[in-house]
C-alpha cells in the first residue's frame, strides 16, 4: 500500500494491512515532526508533494525493495500539508519472515525516499521559514 494523505496517518490500519501468517517480523518506521532543527525551535512543518510523481517514485522504491528482499507486505504513507510537533510525517512498514530483512528493507525505503521522491518540507520557525535542502 502506497499513499499520500492530508489527514493523520493511522498506524493500526497500516499494521492490519501488514498481517501475514508467514510474517515473523514487522519493522515500522515513523518519521515525526520534532520541535527543533539544529537547536532552532520549529513551530510547524509544511509538506508539499508532486503527487502523481511522488507515488510513482515511491512505487519504484518499493518494487526495488521487493526485488532485493523477500517482503510479505510493505506500506508507505506520507503526509502532506501542515504538520505540528509530534505528528507523523511518514510511516514505512515492512513484514518479512525474518527480522534482518525487515530492518534492512525498511531502512532502505526511508533512506531512498529522502533522496528521490518529489516531496518538499518547509520548516517554519518562530522567526522565519526555510525549504529544507533547497539552499547551497
Amino acid at each position, binding site marked *: 500500500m502506497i499513499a499520500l494523505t492530508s489527514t493523520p496517518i493511522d498506524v493500526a490500519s497500516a499494521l492490519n494491512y501488514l498481517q501475514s501468517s508467514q510474517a515473523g517480523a514487522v519493522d515500522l518506521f515513523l*518519521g515525526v515532526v520534532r520541535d527543533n532543527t539544529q537547536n532552532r525551535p520549529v513551530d510547524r512543518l509544511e*509538506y*508539499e*508533494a*508532486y503527487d*502523481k*510523481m*511522488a507515488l*510513482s517514485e515511491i512505487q519504484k522504491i518499493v518494487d526495488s525493495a521487493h526485488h532485493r528482499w523477500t517482503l510479505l507486505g510493505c506500506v508507505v504513507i*506520507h503526509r502532506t500539508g501542515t504538520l505540528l510537533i509530534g505528528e507523523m*510525517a*511518514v510511516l514505512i512498514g515492512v513484514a518479512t519472515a525474518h527480522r534482518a530483512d525487515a530492518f534492512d528493507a525498511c531502512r532502505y525505503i*526511508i533512506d531512498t*525516499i*529522502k*533522496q*528521490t*521522491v*518529489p*516531496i*518538499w*518540507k*518547509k520548516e517554519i520557525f518562530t522567526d522565519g521559514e526555510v*525549504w*529544507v*535542502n*533547497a*539552499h*547551497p
Partner: protein
Amino acid sequence: MNSSANVLLFGIARDLTGQSSVLVPLAPDTRVSDLLTTIHKQYPALLGIQSLLVAVNGEYAEADQPLTPQDEIALIPPVSGG
C-alpha cells in the same frame, strides 16, 4: 511554429517565482537543458536553488531529453520528504 510549455513549480521554486506554474516558449528541438536555460533567464531567482532537476511526464529527465508541447514538465528542487 511557436509553442510553449506549462512548467509545474513546487516548493522553493514556487515560492521564488510566486507561481505554481509558468509558461515557457518551446522552440522545436528544445531539450531539457535548453528549457532550464530559458527558465533561469526568465526567473533568475531560481539560480539560488541548490539544484534543479526536470521531470517529464512524471519521470526524472536527462539534460539532453527532447521536449514536446504535449509533455507534462515539472521543475524538481532538492527533495526533502520523510
